[in-house]
């Protein structure tokens, strides 16, 4: 019975990060990276459409209903995905942590007892593996670049670090699905994630943050203040013309 909210939550993760990445269009530090960030954004938005599409077949709304006609309190994405990431260091650090997680999570999702989720997992795994290669390469390049770039990357890691904890928590609605083999057990992904992240950070000459702080609330709709502002921009046109077709 809890499959629908679990699927929507995965869609929300993908949507808000797709939106954040698309905000980089025209702002990337290199034209080549402009292309890459748009590709990644398109992959995340594509994922959101897959999850929302599946949610629709489970009796939920259509993709635009989920995207444009819910307020921030109804969004259930994890906080890490909605952070602004407004400078390239913050965007890169967040992306790397997400990609390292998605690579592990999607590999497990591909074995889901639910055939549709298994298909989505297999597709996401291909993308996430590539994304992780790309963002890990940036971590290394910027960590092991200039003094300034290392300082910026270390700071960005420290600033985002407390948001990683939510990745490894199964929400109450998800727990039964974990037990049925429909969703991966997030808690079990933690050790492999820590190892993967530590390996890249070592190569990047960056330090794994020592901080133990943790922020949570995304799956319960308790967000950062940033999400409401993002949704105001994302939704205003659609909501200004109720019922219009575009």
């Amino acid at each position, binding site marked *: 019975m809890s499959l629908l909210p679990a699927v929507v939550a995965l869609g929300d993760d993908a949507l808000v990060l797709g939106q954040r990445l698309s905000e980089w269009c025209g702002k990337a*530090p290199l034209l080549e990276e402009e292309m890459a960030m748009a590709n990644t954004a398109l992959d995340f938005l594509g994922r959101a459409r897959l999850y929302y599409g599946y949610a629709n077949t489970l009796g939920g709304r259509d993709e635009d209903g989920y995207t444009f006609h819910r307020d921030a309190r109804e969004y259930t994405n994890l906080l890490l995905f909605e952070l602004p990431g407004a400078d390239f260091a913050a965007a890169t650090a967040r992306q790397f942590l997400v990609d390292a997680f998605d690579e592990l999570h999607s590999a497990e999702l591909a074995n889901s007892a639910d055939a549709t989720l298994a298909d989505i997992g297999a597709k996401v795994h291909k993308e996430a593996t590539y994304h992780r290669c790309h963002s890990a390469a940036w971590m290394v390049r910027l960590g*092991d*670049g200039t003094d300034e770039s290392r300082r910026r990357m270390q700071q960005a890691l420290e600033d985002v670090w407390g948001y990683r904890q939510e990745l490894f928590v199964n929400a109450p609605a998800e727990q039964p699905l974990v037990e049925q083999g429909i969703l991966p057990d997030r808690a079990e992904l933690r050790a492999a994630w820590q190892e993967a992240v530590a390996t890249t950070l070592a190569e990047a000459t960056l330090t794994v943050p020592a901080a133990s702080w943790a922020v949570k609330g995304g799956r319960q709709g308790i967000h950062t203040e940033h999400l409401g502002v993002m949704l105001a921009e994302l939704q205003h046109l*659609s909501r200004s013309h109720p019922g219009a077709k575009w």
Partner: protein
Amino acid sequence: MAAASDEFQARIDREERIEPQDWMPEGYRRTLVRQISQHAHSEVIGMQPEGGWISRAPSLERKVILLAKVQDEGGHGLYLYGAAETLGVSRDELIDAMHTGKAKYSSIFNYPALTWADVGAIGWLVDSAAIVNQVPLQRCSYGPYARAMMRICKEESFHQRQGYDIMLALARGSAAQREMAQDALNRWWWPTLMMFGPSDADSIHSSQSFAWKIKRYGNDELRQKFIDQAVPQAEVLGLKIPDDDLQWDAATGHYRIGAIDWDEFQQVVSGNGPCSRQRLAHHRQVQEDGAWVREAVAVHAAKHRAGSDGPKAAARNSDTAQEGRADAAV
């Protein structure tokens, strides 16, 4: 030298492609650098007016399509910078020239994209005009430019269709949506006509470009071709072209238009368009914000030159990579 110049012209007259390693007159090289870099800058600056609407696109499908489209434009910028680099200038030099006002970009992008319908109008009108301009460039005498244009033209036709599709949805939509579409056409029509440049009689670059087969059709001829395509398309949309003098001329088989405001064009081309300062300031700001990243990439690559990682920036200064980039662009 006269002999080399004669032989060069003879090759052009035989419709042979000129390649980067071939001898060419300095004026030919300069003309191409000017034109190709202007074209590259137009693609990159052109990302701004539409790119500003990605975050606000009214449906998820439109958002994805628009993002992919604007991404294509960045890709066109890359091919074109690559083509320009085959003529011995670096991307950084070209961008500096734009920032200092020495190099131009298309005047059309100095107008603001105020509503969602503007995204449709830009795709429909501006991309249509670009296609009309660019199709003949696929036969330009300079090989790397001609080949870049082949790829670009294919993608532009998709862009044009997505723009027209947005306009069609608006034209069939609510009264407010139809009004939005008409308003966008009103504001984009005349600036689009100006994209083709001044009348041939007043164009300073035309005659030598014809002889070199960089250019094959006159500005007025291309403008007319665009008008003849766009007027019936507007009729299908049920929108009115904002020109009371517009009429069908059965004798010539063309639409005749009213007078273009060339004073406005001169103002915009001179850097006084409604968004001229904003567009350049944005581009400069992005370059400044990204400077630490590009510097780190270069330093990292230098540290690991023996290794296989950190390709881009190390590549920037090496001759072999310049060649590699040129190949990639053609």
